[in-house]
């Protein structure tokens, strides 16, 4: 159906078809404005911003500045392994090559982060306050990894609600009641637990390796080998990463420990890499 021609005559009101020569009487012109659902009664513009806010010099987090890249973690027979590199990148510049992105909470739990390094330092501070409180109370009770996971989820979600997020993807790993625990909390408060957990580029690169090879009852050597392979893949394929890694191990017997930074053997002499298109179909 074609839309019928409508008049914009004040006498008849909007959206009404009528004689072009309708004359507006004072009764029509002077009638008070009817409440309209999509406009505020006060007469203000819809979606108006309070002018006082525009003068506020504070800014909320819009972009991360110094960032860490992927974190990857797996469960194995005796506990969990958490691995990441030690780079704090400034955009794509590899600026700080000795940042530790894994934080030891207590003998049962570690937290690692990708994303804004300063926000992670703030989170480490919060966790430090909780641990100090436990120490002060001195009743032998420590924060469990599951409690750390829930706490961080609440913190991230509350910040997100204030439109001022902590720009991190967090990995929480540890021993919960003598069982390995592994969880992730995203920057808006999304959280879950799983047998293997990755953030950043490792989601695309390391996860397929974990899906294929990770088992909850794998031995420590197999787990370490899998972790090395995953770290290697991430270094090969992620532009903003370096060949300097740390792995944290949490088990019941040995507690939580973070290794010294180490490098892995990389090969750049693969024939296909040197001449990638030599054997490609249609190449000359």
């Amino acid at each position, binding site marked *: 159906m074609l839309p019928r021609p409508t008049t914009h005559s004040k006498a008849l009101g909007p959206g009404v078809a009528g004689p072009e020569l309708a004359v507006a009487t004072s009764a029509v012109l002077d009638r008070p404005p009817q409440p309209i659902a999509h406009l505020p009664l006060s007469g203000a513009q819809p979606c108006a911003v309070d002018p006082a806010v525009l003068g506020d010099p504070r800014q909320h987090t819009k972009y991360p500045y110094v960032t860490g890249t992927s974190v990857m973690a797996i469960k194995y027979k005796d506990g969990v392994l958490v691995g990441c590199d030690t780079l704090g990148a400034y955009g794509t510049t590899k600026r700080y090559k000795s940042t530790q992105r894994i934080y030891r909470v207590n003998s049962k739990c570690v937290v690692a982060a990708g994303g804004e390094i300063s926000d992670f330092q703030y989170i480490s501070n919060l966790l430090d306050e909780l641990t100090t409180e436990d120490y002060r*109370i001195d*009743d032998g*009770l420590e924060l*469990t990894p*599951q*409690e750390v996971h*829930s*706490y961080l989820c609440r913190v991230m979600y509350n910040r997100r609600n204030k439109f001022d997020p902590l720009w991190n993807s967090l990995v929480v790993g540890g021993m919960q009641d003598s069982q390995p625990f592994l969880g992730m909390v995203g920057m808006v408060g999304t959280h879950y637990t799983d047998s293997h957990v990755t953030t950043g580029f490792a989601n695309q690169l390391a996860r397929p390796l974990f899906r294929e090879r990770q088992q909850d009852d794998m031995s420590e050597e197999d787990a370490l080998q899998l972790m090395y392979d995953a770290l290697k893949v991430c270094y090969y394929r992620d532009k903003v990463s370096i060949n300097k890694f740390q792995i944290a191990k949490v088990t019941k017997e040995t507690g939580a420990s973070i290794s010294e930074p180490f490098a892995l053997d990389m090969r750049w002499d693969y024939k296909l890499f040197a001449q990638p298109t030599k054997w490609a179909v249609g190449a000359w």
Partner: protein
Amino acid sequence: MFRNQYDTDVTTWSPQGRLFQVEYAMEAVKQGSCAVGLKSDTHVVLATLKRSQSELSSFQRKVFKIDDHMGIAIAGLTGDGRSLCKYMRNECINHRYVYESSMPVGRLVRQIADKSQVCTQRSWKRPYGVGLLVAGVDPRGPHLFSSCPSGNYYEYKAIAIGARSQAAKTYLEKHLESFPSATLDELVQHGLRALQSSLSEGELTDANSSVAVVGKDLSFTILEDEAVQPYITALKEDEPMQTEGAAAAEEQREAPAEGAAAAEGGGQAAYEAALREGEGPAPMEAD
């Protein structure tokens, strides 16, 4: 205690180094009816005697559930008890919201004690007039604490507070060795027998006694009326044994033992029924 010139203010010391107002507040606890608490290696039991204003009124509640793993029995000013109960429930639920785990019992009791202490050091406040028996389970096992208006708290293996609690304490001290390895039913029986010794007149019935139990795999459950009846019955069956001498007890042992066994079996079934009602995160007792 007699009135003296140092007892007007809670912030006035006496020459002997006493705060009389705080001591008077503890007297208020002794005016409340008796509450008994005891624990084994696996469970904690609270047994309380409920009072009623008159024949027409209901019996005053003495046991309150704080969370699935924790509950309290009060003796003293019920209003103050309810206020502390609300505070404890709030703290527990906030802890659960942030950490998704149960609040450690000792930490909450310490918070109550700190709260009580503040009231003994402000001239515009008065001490709480209620003593709490806090029964709970946390990762370190079952716990029984007692807090009082002075801001003091202790952890106990067994304790009684309220009117004529000394008689109950005597019973508990006598049987202390048997508590750690006792089963839940035995523990409840001990609690009720201790409570019985504090009675000056009348006897324990299902209407005037209230029992609560909590354990590692057992949510805090309040047993009242029908649920506590089997234990009261078992109590009565055992009575002849207690008053007889050792020799006469030989002959008597057969009959009460059978009666007790039947009551125990009935007790177990009624108890399980109460449990089934309160399965998983047990519902709060509505009152």
